[in-house]
């Protein structure tokens, strides 16, 4: 199966580990990975700040970049959702709306792709330790991917899993919200970190680079001994 990877800018620039893990994992599951070079940012930061006009250029670029892809897989629920959102942004546009619809139809978040398309729930991963999982808002509420990460994590050998209290609550990232409303964002991420601590977990796992950068950054600043892992890294560990 040919998979075109939409890596996201955060992964490209700051978390190449996540990208590497995604590639290795998918290859092991029998996929052939292609990374369209002309991919840029999906436009979400500008779009979510109200700069729809500015973000449209990036969106068009992404639509073109992935136009020949068979499957598009993205290791971030929020960015995958953004691809699904394009069709609404271009609503009524005779040229771009149909293209955006096509893009949405073939775009999957990583765990969703593994469970729903590859039909795999046990990827043969092993990781010793106590873990909890942050269900990112865009991934669960907007993209609607709720079960897939849980199904996959359940089958990771050695992982002792505890549910995160208040798991449905936002971590306070929200893109530019985290700097624009820093005061409020701080309270939100603090509560999240408290909840993570309550679980006594060694690992905080998530499927969205943005949330992880936020919670992880706060955990680091507070000097807590909790390791933050992207779910691709967990599923790729053996």
């Amino acid at each position, binding site marked *: 199966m040919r998979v075109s990877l939409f890596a996201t800018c955060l*992964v490209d*620039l*700051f*978390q190449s580990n996540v*990208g590497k893990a995604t590639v290795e994992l998918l290859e092991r599951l029998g996929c052939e990975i292609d990374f369209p070079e002309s991919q*840029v940012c999906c436009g979400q930061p500008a779009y979510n700040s109200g700069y729809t*006009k*500015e973000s449209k250029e990036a969106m068009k670029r992404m639509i073109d970049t992935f136009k020949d892809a068979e499957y598009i897989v993205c290791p971030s629920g929020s960015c995958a959702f953004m691809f699904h959102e394009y069709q609404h942004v271009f609503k009524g546009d005779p040229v771009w709306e149909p293209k955006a619809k096509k893009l949405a139809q073939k775009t999957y978040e990583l765990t969703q792709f593994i469970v729903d398309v590859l039909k795999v729930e046990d990827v043969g991963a092993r990781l010793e330790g106590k873990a909890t999982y942050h269900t990112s808002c865009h991934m669960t509420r907007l993209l609607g991917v709720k079960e897939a990460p849980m199904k996959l994590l359940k089958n990771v050998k050695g992982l002792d899993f505890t549910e995160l209290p208040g798991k449905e609550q936002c971590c306070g990232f929200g893109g530019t*919200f985290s700097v624009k409303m820093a005061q409020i964002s701080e309270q939100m991420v603090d509560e999240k970190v408290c909840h993570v601590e309550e679980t006594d977990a060694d690992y905080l796992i998530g499927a969205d680079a943005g949330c992880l950068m936020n919670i992880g*950054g706060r955990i680091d600043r507070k000097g807590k001994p909790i390791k933050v892992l992207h779910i691709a890294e967990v599923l790729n560990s053996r």
Partner: protein
Amino acid sequence: MPMKISNEQFKERVSKGIHDDFMRGAVSSAQDGMGVKRRIAAEELGNWEDWRSHGEEIRQHVLENLDYYLEQLSNNVAKRGGHVFFAQTKEEANDYIRGIVREKQAKKIVKSKSMVTEEISLNHVLEQEGCEVIETDLGEYILQIDDHDPPSHIVVPALHKNKEQIRDVFTEKLGYTKTSKPEELAAHAREKLRQEYLTADIGITGCNFAVAETGSFSLVTNEGNADLVTALPKTQITVMGMERIVPTFEEMEVLVSLLTRSAVGQKLTSYITVLTGPKEELNVDGPEEFHLVIVDNGRSNILGGEFQSVLQCIRCAACVNACPVYRHVGGHSYGSIYAGPIGAVLSPLLGGYDEFKELPYASSLCGACTEVCPVKIPLHNLLLKHREVIVEKEGKAPISEKLAMKAFGLGAASPTLYKIGSKLAPTAMSPFKDGDKISKGPGPLKAWTEIREFPAPNKERFRDWFKNREEGGK
């Protein structure tokens, strides 16, 4: 109380909220408790999504045909002997009500909870007329005797107050001598208010849902205060936002069910009162005269535009109870009588962007509000729409942000620029690096790194790794 409840800047209000420990404890336990109750009440039905879709289709149909239903309603109210006044502005509404007060030479007025009368500052107008105005909802009553403290929640207005504070207010203002036990406080209020109902000249209510087919309207309470307000005084005035209407009792029933489950997790509240006209000829209780005031006050400007769906709102506050921002800043931070997500969407529409321009940004767009809204208002999308309007039509975004976004537009859309920019990032960031992280970031990163570490850019971008790997043959 006008819609705007504070002259402080948004940041100051938020800061006050964040430092109010009691309020934050109260709000988070209220959110947790009410959130669970709401979820149970929704899930026990087994087909909640159908209920929401039904609520949505009813509300959308009504808004699309609003002029028709308001005409039908007013005809039917008049047929039953009620008087209907259509008020395009709050001044018109207040003038009309003032006229009734003068005609009746009213001295004492009892009210049951109504957001729209808060919105038009009716109490202030009545007090200027020399009337004693008494709020009878327990929460509102507490706020009122505490020198008009503004409400902080649509359904539980005095949520920000603890029982000791309430006891102190009762002691000071009502000569109360008992403890801070909620039962004793409530009993005292009951006793005080009983006398007020019996001696009031006018009763004023809001309206949960008007019913066009019969000219009726419904009031939803747990305390039973609306029943007393409408049964005892000789004159009754009901003030409704023009969109709070349904075709028949059957749709009213659905929306009442959605409201009580979403607001308080109850199948129905203790009192749902459906009133039609003034009392009938031989009846003893009920008003002799009934006035319905239908208020626009900016609502019609929302019709037909991209924010129309906000008028589907049934004021259940489920979105408020689910909102993580409200959780930490509380109701007063919004600076509007309408707090939480619905407040962030509605306040700029009714009160203008100048007053409420920060509110659409006070959201992480997490979608928790949209998920719980019983009439499927896409709240987080509407917040996003506001941002778009602020940037594109109102031109109210900061210049620096505009420039940054312009650059973003260029950079993100152009693979070449993106490549150059991202290649340079590690070098550009290197002065700020502290190992693999940045603890004191420049420019826009500063706000981030005041709270959290920021990762230093990878030395090798993912795309370079991938390319090398391809070329190197794995």
